[in-house]
């Protein structure tokens, strides 16, 4: 199974994104996921899996077996995954009215 590639060129501090996301407020839509992976097989075949790295809230994570899972609950609706998935394998729409991230300060 191909590992997600991290460039050894950069020496970056390790960040526990889940701790940082504690600062955010969400209204989670329990009935509908606004972002979805269209075809899980495509992610398994995708070697680079850039989403695992570029997503600013780390919502995309590699699973055993090389599939990718997306935690739509932590999404801040930036749009990067829609634009940058190499295989256009992300179905992206806005959360239903009132749901999703709710910035307190902005």
């Amino acid at each position: 199974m191909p590992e997600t590639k991290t460039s050894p060129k950069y020496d970056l501090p390790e960040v526990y994104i889940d701790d940082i996301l504690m600062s955010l407020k969400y209204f989670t839509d329990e009935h509908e996921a606004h972002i979805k992976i269209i075809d899980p097989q495509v992610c398994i075949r995708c070697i680079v899996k850039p989403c695992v790295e570029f997503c600013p809230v780390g919502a995309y994570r590699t699973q055993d077996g090389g599939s990718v899972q997306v935690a739509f609950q932590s999404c801040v609706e930036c749009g990067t995954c829609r634009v940058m998935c190499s295989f256009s394998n992300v179905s992206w729409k806005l959360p239903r009215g009132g749901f999703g991230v709710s910035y307190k300060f902005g």
Partner: protein
Amino acid sequence: MIKNEKLSFDVIVIGAGLSGSAAAAIAARSGLKVALIERGQTPGSKNYFGGTLYPHSLLEIYPDLWDRNPPLERPVTEAGFWFLSKDGLVRATVQGGKLNNKTIDAYVALRAKFDVWWAEQAQKEGALIIPKTVVVDFIRENGKIVGVLTDRPQGEVYAPVVIICEGVNNLLTQKLGLIKHDLRPASAALAVKQLIALPSITINTRFGLTDNDHGLAASVLGDVSMGLPGLGFIYTGVDCVSIGMGVTLDSLTKAHVKPYELLQRYLDHPQIAPLIAGGRLMEYGAHIIPEGGWKDMPQLYTDGALVVGDAASMVNALHWEGTNMAILAGKAAAETAIEAHKKGDFSSKSLSSYRTRLDERFIMGDLHQYRNLSFFLRTHPEFMDVYPAFINEALGMFFSGFGQPKKQLYKDIMRSLTYRRPLLKAMGDIVAFGRAIIGV
């Protein structure tokens, strides 16, 4: 209201951000019936920026702005560039002079707070805010837009003209075919930011600000983005510091870095860390900035619809402008809608006066002038690493070589440039930068 009666307005505005609430206010003030549709819990809850707001644009919507107590943070009394090397910092900022705090040109603000208030002002003018509602499509009759379909049950809302202020993810604009592609990875930047709480007195001491009526806004270049085409920023609020960075989507992806780790590296920089030490993370966030400007602009109008603000790529990254263009374009769109109502003509031809209004302001001219800048920065990463590092080293040598022959000093300084970048190339860079700014 009678059941099944059409929910009809004179104008629908999609998105209660800076441009949307400005457009709604101007249209409502003229007596039009305005629906201002917002997808968030409250206006501003989806919005995240650096950042600064500019009174010149706010005052155009509300000449009595200061009587309305806008929720702004600090006035910007010091502004400029910070150049980071691996462990050093050169600050090129201006204070006093044109930035003295009697004539404030910019204020630091927090959008979730400001946008709520901004929308309330539009409400006072008579606009109806419809929150927690997503516009999913347009309603057409005989090919013309006559309203929008929302995600609410029986969610049709009708109006002969729709002002689209949907923000950077301009899916509705794309749906109308006003732009043929999604955001471009080379010119859209992902910005990540931490808002850090610190007592105002600590901020004043660490940033050298006289009191809470003094504030700093700085673009940070150099080690911040590890040579990726990107900029850091730092803004002081009253008791918080906004600190973050933006990097274009393609370079971020190519470099295989996690944006929050890149941000953490910046926050850990030996010159930055002491400024925010002991601060508490109030909020983290991420948002795309449409830095392509002119080159990524959609067609701005069509039969029954106008596009405004980030949705129309109205951003000048070098000058931190975007919020002011959004507000003034919102006003221009509303004036166009008012005129269209007077004529009873909502055709593309009738709405084309929106473009004329933007041409008459600085908006189209500036965006056109800077049309090559985002491409320039992408192809000249030297401005993100070589030159900031050189500036640090050159000044460092100048102010540390005491007791040494000065001829050697200047040789060393010159060498510190040329080993990074051959002299002819450096001169070429300066000319190219000039051209990118002047727009020739």
